[in-house]
């Protein structure tokens, strides 16, 4: 109550050497990052990369084992109650009471956060309106579709005007329209100065973040704005497919040593500026042995592949 963590300039979240292990193994192997106020910051990585563990630590649901986490200037361990007051948490599996109505769920949440009376009623009306739930108000949560439950969950998380909103895989299970609505809401929140921190395994979602960190096997493998991250690829990504990718890569390397081709996931990859000029040369160099050549702007997936050597999707198999 006395701590005033809103001092400008302090980061919204600061992590130093954060580690976490389950009895089965290490989930986080020393994370350092800093999230500025009012930005949308994403953790992009494959399932099992440590995102959910990090989310739970930030949501104060897991005890921090090693390192420090500071949220809005307050220490997550020593000032857990203070941190919780300013956190809005959107769980992947909505934390609604399915027996209660939408409005009752919000009321319960308000009481947990010390809200009551007229103030609470006004807040509930406002959130229901904002998320198009007004006509669902008295419907039991269990009767709602997955998308509506998610919307209720977000309305609930925002009820107490959190300054840091945490979302765990918010787009999972949402149809494209609902996804767009979600992002409109997140962008509007940022305008109000709310910091948004989310985890995702969709690179499209990573692209919409102001900054993001790539998380793989408990480590941060890259951090930056989507544009900066993609710049490290140095041009375009050329993918060459053919019956024998290993031989293809070997012969291409022999012919054009400057290309440094690599085999990843059964196709040959090159990173090249002005890649379109290479298409004809490649096909002519190895006649009949190439099925397809594609040239694409680098994606976050390429950055991930570049940094970790395996893909974002189905990472376990490729690893």
């Amino acid at each position: 109550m006395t701590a005033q963590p809103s001092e400008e300039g302090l980061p919204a979240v600061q992590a130093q050497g954060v580690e976490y292990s389950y009895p089965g193994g290490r989930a986080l192997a020393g994370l350092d990052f800093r999230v500025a106020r009012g930005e949308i910051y994403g953790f992009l990585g494959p399932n099992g990369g440590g995102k959910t563990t990090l989310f739970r630590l930030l949501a104060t649901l897991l005890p921090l084992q090693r390192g420090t986490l500071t949220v809005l200037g307050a220490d997550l361990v020593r000032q857990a109650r203070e941190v919780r007051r300013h956190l809005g948490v959107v769980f992947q599996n909505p934390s609604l009471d399915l027996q209660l109505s939408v409005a009752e769920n919000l009321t319960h949440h308000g009481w947990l956060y010390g809200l009551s009376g007229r103030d609470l009623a006004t807040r509930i009306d406002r959130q229901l309106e904002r998320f198009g739930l007004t006509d669902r108000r008295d419907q039991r949560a269990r009767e709602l579709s997955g998308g509506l439950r998610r919307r209720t969950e977000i309305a609930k998380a925002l009820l107490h005007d959190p300054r840091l909103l945490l979302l765990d895989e918010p787009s999972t299970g949402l149809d494209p329209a609902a996804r767009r609505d979600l992002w409109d809401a997140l962008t509007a929140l940022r305008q109000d100065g709310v910091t948004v921190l989310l985890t995702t395994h969709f690179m499209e979602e990573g692209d919409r973040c102001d900054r993001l960190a790539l998380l793989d096997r408990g480590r941060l493998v890259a951090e930056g704005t989507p544009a900066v991250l993609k710049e490290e690829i140095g041009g375009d990504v050329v993918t060459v497919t053919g019956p024998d990718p290993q031989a293809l890569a070997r012969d291409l390397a022999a012919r054009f040593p400057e290309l440094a081709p690599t085999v990843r996931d059964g196709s040959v990859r090159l990173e090249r500026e002005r890649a379109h000029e290479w298409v004809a040369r490649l096909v002519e160099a190895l006649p009949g042995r190439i099925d397809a050549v594609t040239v694409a702007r680098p994606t976050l997936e390429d950055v991930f592949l570049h940094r970790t050597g395996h893909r974002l999707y189905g990472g376990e198999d490729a690893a």
Partner: protein
Amino acid sequence: MTGLWSLWRRELVRFFRQPSRVAGAAGSPLLFWLLLGSGLSSSFRLPGAAGVDYLEYFYPGTLVLVVLFAAIFSTISIIEDRREGFLQGVLAAPVSRAAIVAGKVLGGATLAWLQGAAFLLLAPVAGLHVSVASLLAAAGVLALLAVALTALGFACAWSVDSVQGFHAIMNLLLVPLWLLSGAVFPLTGAPVWLAALMRLNPLTYGVAALRQTFYVAAAPAADGLPGAGVSLLILAAVGALAFAADLLVLRRGRLE
């Protein structure tokens, strides 16, 4: 405080929205009592207390059974809350952990107490001539019992993963616990080893305290029973210990 209130209120709302739970929880002890009590009433002879038939002897024990079942089964909601994800929202809220435990335990205990109190109204059917004062005293004992048992159930439910597992453990544990509480047969006359077990059983003190509230003078079969004061103290101690255990398991932060 509003957090505690909200959690308490929610237990009640949920209970009354699932009417089958109400009937299921209160129904079987009632049947037990009517069938066993009527069936055994002619063959049962309480040592040193003629005139007490089994329907009457068995009545306090049945009350304890009602509260026991209701309290333990109300804590099943903890398993559901964890599985459905509701609990994570509560744990992330700025509510003291003690208030979370208290809200859940008092909510479940209130439900258990309501069922016990409803059954208490059947005392005249059991042939007991009870005063309003002893009814109130019994209601008080039931309240203490309900809180202690719900707190015990909380810690057990927390460490179990599935509702099925909980049922299995509770059947294994609860029925013998109740059988050995003086609810079904008196302490006096039980073999020494059995009597020793019964004295270790916290439920014995619930039954003993309750039995003594129904009779102004010495209760029949009160010989060998722990006194009402001691019984209440022991119940309170069990409740406090269980509450501490609840807090401990909650702080451990096991969610899945």
